[in-house]
């Protein structure tokens, strides 16, 4: 459904580009319909850069992202809006996702910008419905400013935008890493709800091996800008083939087993 082909991204720092940082190196990957894929990597692995390239918030230095047989890295204007209505993102920081000056529903109404024209009544109906779908009571949320809601509630509102657009692919960049442990699972569950309801695919970009293992149909392990391993989560966890995955697997603290020598 979506295919990343030989994508690289090089950042240069300074006018005379003395420093070159290769954040993503010749990465190819694909996502199938209705699939939950996790892109796992530690900080500096290039996973966020890749996610921004897929969302077309960044241009790759080379390579292409093919969706519906078009290279989206070249899209502009109307076609780009169409792409964003089909492939949408949710980000890490539920505080930074909202502009402090506007009411929280702004980001929901913004979504209609990507859809065919609707009248106000219909927009309102869809906003209500979306908020309910993410487990919020519309009357408790609408008209509020971001600082009046908790982190978890904000993240739910951000996800509600996907319920309005019902895109084919949702790219979620560390959607729970800044939330409290006890509220995380509730948010994760919303993504599987989206999949169940609209047959949307989800890419979880995460540093959390456990999260990837528990929720996904397929995992991709990223290390220093390269995807080093890919496969069924159980398969990858139990029989990691790449050195890095093996080390990761050994060094992640577990709940049911203890490390030796501690």
């Amino acid at each position, binding site marked *: 459904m979506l295919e990343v082909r030989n994508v690289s991204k090089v950042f240069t720092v300074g*006018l005379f580009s003395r420093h070159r940082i290769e954040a993503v190196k010749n990465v190819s990957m694909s996502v199938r319909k209705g699939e939950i894929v996790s892109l796992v990597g530690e900080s500096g692995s290039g996973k966020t850069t890749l996610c*921004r390239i897929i*969302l077309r*918030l960044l241009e790759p230095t080379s390579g292409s992202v093919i969706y519906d047989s078009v290279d989206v890295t070249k899209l502009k204007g109307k076609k*780009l*809006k169409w792409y*964003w209505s089909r492939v*949408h*993102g949710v*980000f*890490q*920081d539920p505080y*930074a*996702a*909202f*502009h*402090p*000056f*506007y009411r929280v529903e702004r*980001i929901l109404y*913004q*979504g209609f*910008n*990507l859809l065919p024209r609707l009248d106000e009544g219909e927009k309102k109906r869809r906003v209500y419905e979306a908020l309910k779908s993410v487990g919020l009571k519309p009357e408790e949320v609408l008209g509020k*400013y971001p600082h009046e809601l908790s982190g978890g509630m904000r993240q739910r509102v*951000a996800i509600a*935008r996907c319920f309005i657009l019902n895109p084919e692919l949702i790219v979620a960049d560390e959607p729970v890493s800044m939330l409290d442990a006890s509220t995380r699972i509730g948010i994760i569950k919303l993504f599987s709800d989206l999949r169940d309801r609209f047959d949307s695919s989800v890419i979880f970009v995460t540093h959390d091996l456990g999260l990837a293992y528990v929720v996904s149909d397929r995992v991709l392990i990223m290390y220093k800008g390269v995807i080093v391993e890919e496969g069924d989560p159980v398969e990858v966890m139990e029989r990691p083939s790449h050195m890095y995955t093996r080390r990761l697997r050994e060094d992640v603290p577990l709940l049911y087993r203890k490390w030796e020598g501690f």
Partner: protein
Amino acid sequence: MLSGISKLIKPELFMIKKFDASLGVLFAVFALGFIGPLLYQVQPTAVAGPLEAPPSRQFPLGTDAYGKDVLAQLIAGVRGSLQIGATAAAISLLIGVIVGLIAGYKGKLVDNLLMMLTDIVLLLPSILLMILIAAYFKWRDPLLVSIIIGVTSWPWVARAVRSQTLSLKNREFVNLSKMAGLSDFQIVIRDILPNIASYIFMAYVLLMSGAMIAETGLSMIGLGTTQGLTLGNILFWAQVLEAVRRGLWWWFIPPGATLVALAASLLMLATALDEYFNPKLRGS
């Protein structure tokens, strides 16, 4: 957006003493300039009485070496200075904000070039540039003086706006707006500008006080406006005609004191706003 900004101004702001004090002083000086002419109807440019008369009931601030009323000059001067200050500050702010926004938002080559320009202007002392430019104009109306001050004092605004824009443009709300198909222009106007609104307001206040001081400096070296009165003009004539050495204190103390009061209260206002908007400074 306006409702958003007005939401930021809460009664707490008035609990900052510096804010109240500076507002009070500002109000008094503005009243002097704008209500003063109604209450004190003496021509500032006409000979009103004896030469070099010390303050008295008739001439509350005395007269100058030509017999012109100093209080009347002060009233006109405050207005002239405020006018130049306000215009010059607006010009600097406009340049600084536009340069900063473009550099910060566009990034890459545009950013590098604009910042190089900014750093160069920053390195060349603005007061010297002003004097140099003004020297080539024989006639200088208040607008020209404002422009000269304005085009030489924007770099630090540009730098600050750029760095704020840089940190804002990768915020997630900008990405969300982008993904909703908003154009760069719309994002800058709706998402970035409101966030630096408080800073822009503070910058304006500081630029204004800086511009009024700069105007006085230009005037003192003989390059102020050649039309109308400013506080700097009064000080210039007092200096040229040796008011200090001849002990005519009422001629040079009031205009200077008014300028200091204006500039200091504007700075204090900016400091108070900064404390209000950046609670880090206020204490934990």
